[in-house]
């Protein structure tokens, strides 16, 4: 795999030098947390101990249209706690003091625009964040943001969905620096009992068209999902199941362990 020298790839080339068959069959674990909902630094520490390979740091937004009720509620709590974008950078810095785990900032476009794209790129980099994913920013509108992030060696990641056409698969593959994030089903984020029955076939089909690794997210919340996805993707993303545990005062680490080990 080509080393692009930026983003998550640069942070942990080892994770993605996945030409070895083993690396491509056992998916790495990406854990999502909503920053400012609970003690995020401690939560991330616990998740890393439980086996998380990468962390998505959610920057809360008031109107998260791609998120289901669990992450909406967590974002609302975080905002009520007074969480600002700069607090997320402070959280990243604290994590970085103790850990080299790759960090992906995850949000919506408006808070980034308001912060100022150049400022955001600079502060993301100095906080030790490696990559950025904005759910409402398709690659064709991302020129300015990509350039600003790349100037700070921050990678950009884009989404693919079951409805994406071949032309869009190509464009997203080209624009994504680290990996492509495949949305498992049409819908918003949220733990689901069962994954979309067409997911595996569709995933194999999409993966074959990509030059970049592929992560799968939305709905993944059980060990059997992890087992089902083994061999079909490079990363799995678990969000709502972890965020729900945080909200209910349960251990996010045990959720991660349960998904990984059963």
């Amino acid at each position, binding site marked *: 795999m080509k080393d692009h020298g930026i983003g998550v790839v640069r942070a942990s080339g080892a994770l993605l030098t996945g030409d070895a068959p083993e690396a491509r069959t056992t998916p790495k674990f990406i854990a999502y947390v909503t920053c400012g909902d609970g003690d995020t630094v401690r939560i991330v520490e616990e998740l890393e101990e439980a086996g998380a390979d990468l962390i998505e740091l959610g920057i809360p937004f008031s*109107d998260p249209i791609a998120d289901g009720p669990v992450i909406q509620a967590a974002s609302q709590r975080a905002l009520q706690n007074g969480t600002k974008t700069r607090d997320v950078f402070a959280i990243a810095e604290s994590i970085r003091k103790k850990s080299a785990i790759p960090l992906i900032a995850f949000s919506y476009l*408006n808070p980034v625009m*308001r912060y100022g794209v150049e400022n955001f790129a600079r502060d993301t980099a100095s906080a030790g964040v490696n990559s950025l994913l904005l759910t409402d920013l398709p690659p064709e509108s991302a020129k300015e943001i990509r350039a600003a992030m790349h100037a700070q060696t921050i990678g950009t990641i884009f989404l693919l969905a079951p*409805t994406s*056409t071949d032309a*869009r698969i190509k464009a997203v593959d080209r624009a994504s620096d680290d990996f492509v994030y495949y*949305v498992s089903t*049409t819908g918003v984020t949220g733990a689901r009992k069962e994954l979309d029955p067409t997911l595996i076939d569709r995933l194999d089909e999409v993966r074959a068209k990509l030059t970049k690794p592929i992560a799968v997210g939305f709905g993944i919340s059980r060990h059997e999902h992890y087992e089902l996805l083994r061999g079909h993707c490079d990363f799995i993303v678990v969000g709502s199941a972890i965020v729900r545990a945080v909200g209910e005062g349960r251990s996010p680490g045990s959720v991660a362990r349960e998904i990984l080990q059963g």
Partner: protein
Amino acid sequence: MTVPNKQGFFGQFGGKFVPETLMAALDEFESAYKKVKRDKSFRRELDDILANFVGRPTALSEAPKFAEMCGGFRLFLKREDLNHTGAHKINNAIGQALIAKRMGKQRIIAETGAGQHGVATATACALLGLQCVVYMGEVDMARQELNVFRMRLLGAEVVPVSSGSRTLKDAINEAIRDWVTNVRTTHYIIGSVLGPHPYPMVVRDFQSVIGREALAQLRKRTGKLPDVAIACVGGGSNAIGLFHAMLPHESIRMIGVEAGGRGPELGNHAARFSGGALGVLHGTRSMVLQDEHGQIAETHSISAGLDYPSIGPEHAYLQEIGRVEYHDCSDDLALEAFHKLSESEGIIPALESSHALGWLLRNGASISGDVVVNLSGRGDKDVPTVAAL
């Protein structure tokens, strides 16, 4: 220059900022729209429904007694309140429902603030045999109870939205979440010149009948173009509808009136130009009321239809190039106009439209010539709100 461009931008405003899942549906909608635009049978079907079901063309009424209270000009009201269902919203709802049918989508979703777009969409769905689900904030459901009942009578499911400020913004969030989930079978009929491309263009085109009719009617009555055109602006569909055909006529002064609410502090109004900043909300880049951290602000207006933190991207563009001027009108002034028009002319205007009239009451002394105001809807739905004051 024709706007929007191919990517859906009006200058720096507009575009498509949505989760990937929706991108294919937007492309599908855009190609379906391009196809029906060239299709004479579509135009015939739409015109037939507009004439024989909606009741177009709507009247143009002169309002001399109200004009006298404002200043020394002739005032004409474009009577969109006389449309079937009581507002301009039906012009767009019928058009989009016809496209949905041609795309083979049997399920329609919509958001509504004042309830007029919800009623219009429920009506279009009943007429065309489509399933209809309308998202509405709980605050709006309480203040527009009559319209909730009307939608249910028309066979629509009304889903209460309890998140955020429980008004139009949150109803749109929920409608988008539904659409992301059911995108293959569902068409989302957005009710204003908002949202990702191609919505601002499509809604504008379906509403532009208002301005075309008004120009023709004025030509007959006065033999000339109007001097001033005024409309209230929430998302901005009735205003774009009035303005669009008039834009090439540079002699016409155009004024959009936003909700000034209770005052200029963030959270007390919906005046995006004086209080907002460039941002992205609900798929489009425009002027957005937000705090310094980019969190969307809550808004206030006595009229549910103007109570929204962003403004249609074409309005942001028209403001930037200086073609249309935007002002605001307070709750109190809108209420004063609501009463004055009712008493002087025998027309009860919607509280939304009352903002355009309220601005005229306060600023009419500086205006002369012929003025046309878009009376975007009737005020029946607002009677309980006004009675409760």
